[in-house]
């Protein structure tokens, strides 16, 4: 019998040809307890089901939708799922989390994960419920945005289905295309391209069963308590202004990446600031399913309509491209949503291209920093994969730089092929390490080391041992939150996180789990991700930052220079390897491999 909150099985679906076939895949309790669900379980599934060195866009490459024991409970922010695959952008492991009713309905098909393999003969939708799986041709959905496809699918199949869909960029396998549902996106690493490569426009799930937890009364009481605490000061920022509140603050402390990381302050920041937009344009606030925080802030657009804005899409399509007109940034963000593009990778790749154009490395004289119309034109070219620039930029900044040459890889804003988020590594040096070593590539959700940089507890300009400890700790916490799954915007409400998370897990699953076990689980998940990447060809040389970050100091607003040279980063990476029990090449020790439960 499966532990509370779990079904003890995944569903492996093959969509090859014109019909879908499926088979259950047993998940024994040992594996569930070792990996929890979400990102952790998805990583284990990739180890088991992805053929070594598989092309991420090949039919046999698995694409997994993974749930967890908490999904479907009343615990706030737990209606989340992870999408896990080998990334078309990085060639390594990628995972993306999203929140919506899709998580609950997907789990209540009776599975802890749904893994899809194969390639349909024509553009199709996959339906999964208590009656099994079926593949339906859907050529009429071609070219639609994810939101339009979701509406059309509901119209055709009924309103009680929950839909995850891709936009035109996913169909065309742009390497940073997203999977979307209910306006939310599993955004990073090109999971939309992986789904497009299977000729799937959408996956529809419908609840068919129930799942019980070990201590129903205890879970209800914990949910009430967590909900109450979610209204406290730790989440005030998200409730009151949303993540866009970062923008002006980051500008004030010289950590707002601007014009492809050539500066860390942006003169146009006040025009894009949440503080200003909230007063002038704020129209609504919204929440994900089962969430009491409500971080989603929606702004009116000039000429009508509204747009949800987050820090990362404003940073990437605004300062990073030198664009300061909020309406141009809103329009670019909306275009990314319509096409189904990861805004960070889209903005990063276009910012790199703008710099290339200004340096004369690519012959696109119209593509200039600060030109909002050029930004939109470039996004359209990417979404269409139009010959020339569109095709080039659809590959992401790393591959594009390999084509363009002339040293342009030095300023391609990526790690392991994934474009950098809006945290300047030179002025946030714990974060610099987190970005360099993370399995997913340059990522702010799997490493939240910026928390330490901005805590006042260490010198953010002088990376050293304290920064290593902070990077390891925040990565561990992320590994558990992403696997349980809980929203990271809740992290500040936990005074003793591992202990409190263990208590929640015990109530749901019935396991006698404690903080020490969960810390071990975190380390296992991080090691398992790294082991997967090593299997796929990653080396210690991938644990670095773009040359620009290591060779060009940054002038801060205060007049001080923020410098992060290669020696300092190497020293921090070595400290990270030691803290993680890895060898000098960043490899997982043989003794630790057994703990990953990859055999048998």
């Amino acid at each position: 019998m499966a532990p509370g909150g779990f079904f003890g099985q995944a569903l492996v679906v093959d969509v090859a040809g014109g019909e879908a076939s499926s088979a259950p895949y047993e998940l024994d309790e040992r594996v569930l307890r070792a990996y929890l669900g979400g990102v952790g379980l998805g990583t284990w599934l990739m180890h088991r089901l992805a053929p070594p060195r598989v092309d991420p866009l090949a039919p046999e490459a698995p694409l997994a939708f993974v749930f967890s024991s908490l999904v479907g409970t009343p615990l706030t922010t737990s209606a989340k799922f992870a999408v896990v695959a080998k990334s078309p952008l990085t060639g390594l492991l990628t995972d993306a989390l999203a929140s919506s009713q899709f998580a609950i309905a997907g789990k209540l098909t009776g599975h802890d994960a749904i893994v899809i393999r194969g390639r349909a003969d024509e553009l199709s939708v996959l339906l999964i419920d208590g009656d099994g799986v079926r593949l339906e041709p859907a050529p009429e959905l071609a070219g639609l945005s994810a939101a339009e496809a979701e509406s059309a699918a509901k119209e055709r199949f009924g309103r009680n289905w929950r839909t995850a869909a891709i936009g035109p960029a996913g169909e065309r396998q742009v390497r940073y295309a997203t999977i979307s549902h209910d306006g939310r996106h599993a955004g990073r690493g090109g999971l939309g391209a992986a789904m497009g490569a299977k000729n799937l426009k959408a996956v529809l799930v419908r609840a068919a069963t129930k799942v019980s937890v070990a201590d129903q009364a205890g879970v209800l009481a914990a949910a009430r308590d967590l909900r109450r605490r979610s209204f406290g000061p730790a989440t005030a920022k998200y409730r009151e202004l949303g993540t866009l509140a970062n923008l002006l603050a980051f500008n004030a402390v010289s950590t707002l990446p601007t014009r492809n990381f050539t500066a860390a302050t942006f003169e146009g920041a006040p025009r894009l600031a949440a503080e200003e937009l909230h007063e002038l344009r704020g129209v609504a606030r919204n929440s994900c399913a089962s969430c009491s925080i409500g971080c989603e802030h929606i702004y009116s657009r000039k000429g009508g309509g509204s747009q949800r804005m987050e820090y990362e899409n404003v940073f990437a399509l605004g300062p990073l491209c030198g664009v300061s007109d909020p309406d141009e940034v809103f329009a670019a963000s909306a275009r990314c949503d319509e096409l189904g593009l990861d805004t960070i990778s889209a903005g990063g790749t276009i910012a790199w291209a703008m710099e290339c154009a200004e340096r004369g490395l690519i012959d696109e004289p119209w593509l200039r920093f600060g030109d909002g119309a050029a930004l939109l034109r470039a996004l359209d070219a990417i979404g269409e994969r139009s010959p020339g620039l569109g095709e080039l930029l659809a590959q992401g900044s790393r591959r594009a730089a390999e084509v363009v040459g002339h040293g342009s890889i030095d300023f391609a804003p990526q790690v392991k092929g994934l474009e950098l988020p809006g945290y300047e590594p030179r002025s946030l040096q714990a974060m610099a390490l987190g970005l360099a070593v993370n399995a997913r590539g340059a990522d702010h959700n799997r490493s939240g080391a910026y928390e330490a940089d901005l805590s006042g507890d260490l010198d953010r300009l002088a990376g050293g041992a304290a920064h290593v400890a902070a990077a390891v700790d925040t990565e561990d916490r992320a590994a558990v939150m992403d696997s349980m799954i809980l929203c990271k915007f809740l992290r500040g409400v936990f005074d003793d996180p591992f202990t409190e998370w263990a208590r929640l897990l015990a109530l749901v699953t019935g396991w006698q789990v404690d903080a020490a076990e969960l810390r071990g689980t975190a380390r296992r998940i991080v090691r398992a991700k790294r082991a997967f990447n090593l299997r796929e060809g990653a080396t210690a040389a991938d644990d670095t930052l773009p040359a620009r970050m290591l060779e060009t100091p940054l002038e801060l607003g205060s007049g001080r220079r923020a410098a992060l040279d290669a020696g300092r980063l190497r020293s921090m990476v070595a400290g990270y390897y030691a803290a993680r029990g890895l060898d000098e090449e960043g490899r997982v020790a043989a003794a630790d491999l057994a703990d990953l439960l990859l055999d048998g």
Partner: protein
Amino acid sequence: MGRPKAWLEWHGSTLLHRATAVLARTVDGPVVVVAAPGQELPPLPSGVSVVEDPVEGLGPMQGLAVGLEAVADRAETAFVCSTDMPFLHPAFVRRVLRALAPGTDVALPVARGFRQPLAAGYRTALAGLVKDLLAKGDLRPGMLFKHCEVARLSDEELLADAELARHDPTLESVINVNSPDDYAAARDRPPPEVVVECFGALARNGGHRPRGVRAATLGAAAAEAGLTLNRHVVAALNGDQVTRDEALPLVAGDTVAFLSADAGG
């Protein structure tokens, strides 16, 4: 004074705390306090270290030798000051240190009519020379200046620095507190004017727009902004280091940004 100057209260901490904290926020290298044998010191900012002068009663030259020697392995130049300078401004420190060009051993302000050997810049390699002079009984800084290359900085030369001219136009940086009246007068002065900005959830009703307040410490500036520094609220001084240190001294011209510590998203 009747009391050790290092312990004199200054806006919630002490004169010594202020002097060391101002230096710590100004320079990249180490900050060292030279204490007399057995001298008890008030709490110091984190990162500030103490070296004990093995010999008592030899005056400032002995302290200078000990201090320069203590940092010589980590810094080529050092700013040296006494504990009783409540208006020392970072712009003054920067201006003096900039005068230590190659070939110059001492940057000596001659400010407000007096030489200021205890508000001056020195090459740390001078430690040996100072000790030699002490061994010969030369206890006055003037003797040192005869044996090395000294750049004297007049009021005009000091104030040619635009930042210093803007924030300390009468060079109050070099004012000492030598009597109870001096101390009382210094305490009676209004705190420096600084600019406060609040961001994110801390900025309500247009509160993110810069405004001037008078505050001698970060804690006082937070209070002016209606905030308390804690795990959710931090501050960045002049866009640089992030801190929750309420005792951090502020000076004229500072900008303090209060941020939500719960970054991310």
